[in-house]
C-alpha cells in the first residue's frame, strides 16, 4: 500500500503540474478543450490525493511499521480514533493533510463554476493549481509520508525492515479535541486560498465589476468560520490539556493562527465597502493577499523553528521552501498589482466621519494594527537579531498592552458600525439608535463599580458588552415589530422570518453577539485566582466558594497508559457538590506523561483542578487549583459565532421585502435612499 499511495501522490503532482501549464496555455490560446482539460486535471488532483491519504490511513490501521511515519506516530495499542489523528501528528502527514483539504476546496470551486465565468475561471484554476503544486512538491520530494525504513543490502539493493512496534503518539495529542481541532484550523488556513485565487485572478484578467467579491463571499465565510472554530478549539485544547489554567499564551503558534484571522475579518468587512460604494479596491486586494501570505507564514512559523518558543526544539529544513514560496507569491502579487493597478481605481471618497464607511475604515485599521502588533511581537527575536544583533523576545505583557485596548475599540465598533448609515449619519438618528443602549451600558458600568469591580478594562468591557447587545436587540426588535404588523405573527416567528429574509444582515448580528460573549469570557480573566499546595489524603483546600477534600488516590493500568488519579470531593456552601478526578497518565511507549485536568464548569466560573506532579522534596502530590470566572462564555460565544455564520450563509428568502422594514432604522434608510439599486441587486445575488 505504501507504494500505491506514493504513486498516487506522484500522479497528483503531475496532474497539478499539467493544470498549471495547460491552464496557462489555455489562457493564451483560448481553446475551449484546453480549458476543460486543465480543469479536469485540477479535479483529478483531489481524487489522487484522497487515494494517497486512504493508503496512509490503511498503513496506520494495519500497523505497518516499515513506514517511517507510522513508526514515529503510532503503536499497536493506540486506539483507532487516534490512529486517524496520527495522520496529522507529524510534519509529513500534516503537510499531506494540508494538501488534502486544499484539494477539496479546489475541487468544489472547479465543479461549482464549471462552464461559468469563462474570462475568470482559467486564471483562478491556474493560481489554485500553482498553490497545490507547491504543497505537492513538499509531499513528494521534501517530506514524503510514505518513506520506508530500510538499509542497503548486498549489491546496494534496498532491504526494507519492519519494526515490531511504533513509538506511539505523543500524549498531548491523545485527547478527543485534538482529533477535530487540526482539521478545523487547516480548513481555515487552506480555505483562504480561494478568495486569494479569485482576487489575483480577477486582477490578472481585469475581470469587470465586483463580481469576484460576490463569488468568493461564501467561500471566505466558510474559511473564516473554520479558522474561528480552529482557534477556539486550539484554545480549549490548551486550556483542558496543558494544565496551566489559561487558554492563550501568545505563543508563536497561536499567533500564527490569529494573524490570518485578523486580516480575514478585516477583509470580510471591507469588501462591503467595495460592493456597495466601489471603494477600497486596492486595500481589499492587498488584504486578501496578506491573509493568504499570513496563512503560509503561519505554516512556516510552526514548522521551521524560525522563532524559538515553547516549541524551541522543533527544527526543520523545510523552512527555506516556505520562504521561497512566500517570496514567489509576493513577487507575483506585486507584479499583477503594478501591471493592472488602474483597474482598482476607487469610485467614491469618504463623505463623513460618522458614517458606515468610516466605521469600516476604523475597524480595518484597528484589526490591521492588531495584526501588525502580533506579527512584530512574534517575529521580535528575528527582527531584533537583525537590528541589534541580539535575540530578544517579548512576552504576554507586550501583546496584552496593545491588544486589550484594540479589542475594546473593536467591540465598540461592533455596536456602532452596523447602525450607522452609508455616506453620513444625522445627529437625530444617532440619538434614536444609540441613546438607550449607551445609557444602559453606563448604568451597567456604574452597577459593576458599585459591586466592587475595579479592573478598568473589565469595567469598560462590561459597559460595551451591554451596549452592543442592546443595539443588536434593538435591531431585531424593530425589524420584528414591522414584520409582526405585516404578517400578524407572534414575536418569535416574526424574528425568525425576519432573519430568514435577510440572512446576511441578521446572521452578521448573531456573529457579533457571539463575539460579545467571547469578550465577556475574556474579561473574566482579570479575576482569575489560583492556589497550589502539596496534599495528602484527607487534606483540604479552599478557593472562592469551593471547599476541596482529597479523598483518596488510585493507580490503574489502561491499554495504552497507566493512570494515577486523585479523587476530590468538592463542597459548596457546606454541601457536597460533586467529585473531581484530576489525573496523570504515563505512556510507556514513549516514556512521556500527560495531564488530564478536571474541570467543573458553570456560566459563572470554572473550577479547574490539576494534578501537577510530585514535590521533589516530600514526594507528596502537588495540586494546582484555579478559579477562572466566565471562561465558559468563550466557548459558548464561539458556538453562537458558528450559528450566525451558518445563518449568513443561507440564501435569503424574498429579499426585496427586507428593505421595507429596514427604512425604520437610520442605517438602511440612508442606504435605501442613496444606493437602492445596488442593495437590491446584491441581495438577490447573495
Amino acid at each position, binding site marked *: 500500500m505504501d507504494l500505491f499511495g506514493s504513486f498516487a501522490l506522484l500522479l497528483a503532482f503531475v496532474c497539478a503540474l499539467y493544470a498549471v501549464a495547460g491552464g496557462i496555455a489555455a489562457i493564451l490560446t483560448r481553446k475551449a478543450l484546453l480549458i476543460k482539460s486543465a480543469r479536469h486535471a485540477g479535479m483529478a488532483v483531489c481524487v489522487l490525493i484522497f487515494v494517497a491519504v486512504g493508503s496512509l490511513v490503511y498503513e496506520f490501521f494495519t500497523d505497518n511499521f516499515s513506514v517511517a511515519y507510522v513508526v*514515529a*506516530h503510532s503503536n499497536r495499542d493506540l486506539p483507532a480514533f487516534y490512529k486517524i*489523528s496520527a495522520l*496529522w*501528528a*507529524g*510534519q509529513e502527514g*500534516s503537510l499531506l493533510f494540508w494538501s488534502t483539504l486544499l484539494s477539496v476546496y479546489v475541487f468544489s470551486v472547479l465543479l461549482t463554476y464549471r462552464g461559468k465565468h469563462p474570462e475568470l475561471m482559467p486564471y483562478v484554476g491556474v493560481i489554485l493549481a500553482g498553490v497545490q503544486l507547491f504543497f505537492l512538491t513538499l509531499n513528494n520530494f521534501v517530506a514524503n509520508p510514505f518513506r520506508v525504513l530500510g538499509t542497503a543490502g548486498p549489491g546496494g539493493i534496498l532491504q526494507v525492515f519492519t519494526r515490531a512496534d511504533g*513509538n506511539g503518539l*505523543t500524549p*498531548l*495529542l491523545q485527547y478527543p479535541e485534538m482529533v477535530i*481541532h*487540526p*482539521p478545523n*484550523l487547516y480548513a481555515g*488556513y487552506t480555505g483562504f486560498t480561494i478568495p486569494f485565487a479569485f482576487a489575483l485572478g480577477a486582477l490578472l484578467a481585469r475581470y469587470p465589476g465586483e463580481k469576484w467579491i460576490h463569488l468568493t463571499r461564501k467561500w471566505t465565510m466558510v474559511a473564516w468560520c473554520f479558522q474561528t472554530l480552529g482557534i477556539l478549539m486550539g484554545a480549549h485544547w*490548551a486550556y483542558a490539556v496543558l494544565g*496551566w489554567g*489559561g487558554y492563550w499564551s501568545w*505563543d508563536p503558534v497561536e499567533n500564527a*493562527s490569529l494573524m490570518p484571522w485578523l486580516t480575514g475579518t478585516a477583509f470580510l468587512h471591507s469588501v462591503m465597502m467595495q460592493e456597495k460604494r466601489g471603494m477600497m479596491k486596492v486595500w481589499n486586494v492587498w488584504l486578501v493577499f496578506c491573509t493568504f501570505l499570513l496563512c503560509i507564514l503561519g505554516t512556516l512559523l*510552526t*514548522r521551521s523553528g524560525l522563532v*524559538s518558543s*515553547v*516549541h*524551541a*526544539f*522543533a527544527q526543520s529544513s523545510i523552512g527555506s521552501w516556505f520562504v521561497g514560496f512566500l517570496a514567489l507569491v509576493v513577487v507575483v502579487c506585486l507584479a499583477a498589482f503594478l501591471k493592472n493597478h488602474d483597474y482598482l481605481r476607487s469610485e467614491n471618497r*469618504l463623505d*463623513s466621519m460618522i458614517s458606515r464607511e468610516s466605521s469600516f475604515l*476604523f475597524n480595518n*485599521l*484597528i484589526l490591521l*494594527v492588531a495584526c501588525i502588533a502580533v506579527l*512584530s511581537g512574534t517575529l*521580535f*527575536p528575528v527582527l531584533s537579531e537583525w537590528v541589534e544583533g*541580539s*535575540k*530578544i*523576545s*517579548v*512576552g504576554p*505583557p*507586550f501583546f496584552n*498592552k*496593545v491588544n486589550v*485596548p484594540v479589542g475594546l475599540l473593536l467591540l465598540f465598533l461592533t455596536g456602532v458600525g452596523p447602525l450607522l448609515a452609508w455616506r453620513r449619519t444625522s445627529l437625530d438618528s444617532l440619538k434614536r439608535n444609540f441613546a438607550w443602549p449607551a445609557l444602559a451600558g453606563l448604568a451597567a458600568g456604574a452597577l459593576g463599580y458599585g459591586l466592587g469591580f475595579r479592573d478598568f478594562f473589565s469595567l469598560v468591557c462590561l459597559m460595551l458588552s451591554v451596549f452592543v447587545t442592546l443595539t443588536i436587540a434593538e435591531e431585531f426588535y424593530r425589524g420584528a415589530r414591522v414584520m409582526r404588523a405585516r404578517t400578524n405573527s407572534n414575536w418569535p416567528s416574526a424574528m425568525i422570518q425576519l432573519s430568514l429574509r435577510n440572512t446576511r444582515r441578521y446572521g452578521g448580528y448573531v456573529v457579533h453577539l457571539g463575539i460579545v460573549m467571547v469578550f465577556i469570557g475574556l474579561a473574566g480573566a482579570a479575576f482569575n485566582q489560583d492556589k*497550589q499546595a502539596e496534599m495528602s489524603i484527607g487534606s483540604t483546600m479552599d478557593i472562592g466558594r469551593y471547599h476541596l477534600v482529597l479523598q483518596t488516590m488510585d493507580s490503574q493500568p489502561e491499554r495504552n497508559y497507566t493512570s494515577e488519579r486523585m479523587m476530590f470531593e468538592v463542597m459548596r456552601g457546606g454541601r457536597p457538590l460533586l467529585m473531581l478526578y484530576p489525573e496523570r497518565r504515563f505512556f510507556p511507549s514513549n*516514556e*512521556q*506523561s500527560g495531564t488530564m485536568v478536571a474541570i467543573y464548569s458553570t456560566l459563572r466560573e470554572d473550577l479547574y483542578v490539576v494534578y*501537577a*506532579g510530585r514535590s*521533589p*522534596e516530600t514526594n507528596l502530590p*502537588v495540586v*494546582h487549583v484555579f478559579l477562572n470566572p466566565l471562561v465558559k462564555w468563550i466557548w459558548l460565544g464561539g458556538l453562537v459565532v458558528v450559528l450566525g455564520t451558518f445563518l449568513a450563509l443561507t440564501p435569503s428568502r424574498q429579499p426585496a421585502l427586507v428593505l421595507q422594514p429596514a427604512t425604520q432604522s437610520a442605517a438602511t434608510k440612508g442606504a435605501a435612499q442613496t444606493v437602492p439599486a445596488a442593495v437590491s441587486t446584491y441581495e438577490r445575488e447573495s
Partner: protein
Amino acid sequence: MGKQLKFGVGIGVILVSLGWLAWLGARESKTYYHTIAELGTLHGPDLRQRMRIGGTVRAGSIQKVAGRVDFVLGGEGKWLAVSYVGTDPLPDTFVDNSQALVEGRLAPDGRFVAEKVQAKCASKYEAAPSGPGRPVAPARADSST
C-alpha cells in the same frame, strides 16, 4: 478642517497611542536569548537583563534543595549553575541529559536563578511539530502563570 485631515488626525492618534502601549509592553517583558558561552562576554547592565538560556542538563547534577532545585546546564563546552526557584513542579521530561530552556536572571554570584524551566527529552521522539497549527508544547513549569 478638511475631511481627509480629520481622518488623518483620528488615525494618527490611534496609531501613536497603540505604538506607545506596544513600547511599554516590550520594555516590560523583553527577554534576551543567550548561549552559555555568551554569558561570559556580558558586561554592566547587560548582566541584569531577563534572559533565556538553553542547554543540556549535566548527568547527575540535579539536586533537590529546600525551596529550590539546583542543576548544571551545559553547552558549547561551558557550564552554568542554575537554581530553579519557581513554584510549579518541574516537567517530567526534565531529567539527566535532557534539553532544557531556563528563563530568569543572573545572580551576583554568577548562579542563574530561573523562574521557568522547559524541558524536552532529547532522544525519544522527533520534535513533533505535531500537527496542525499547533506543535506540541513541551510540558511547562512556569511560575508566572
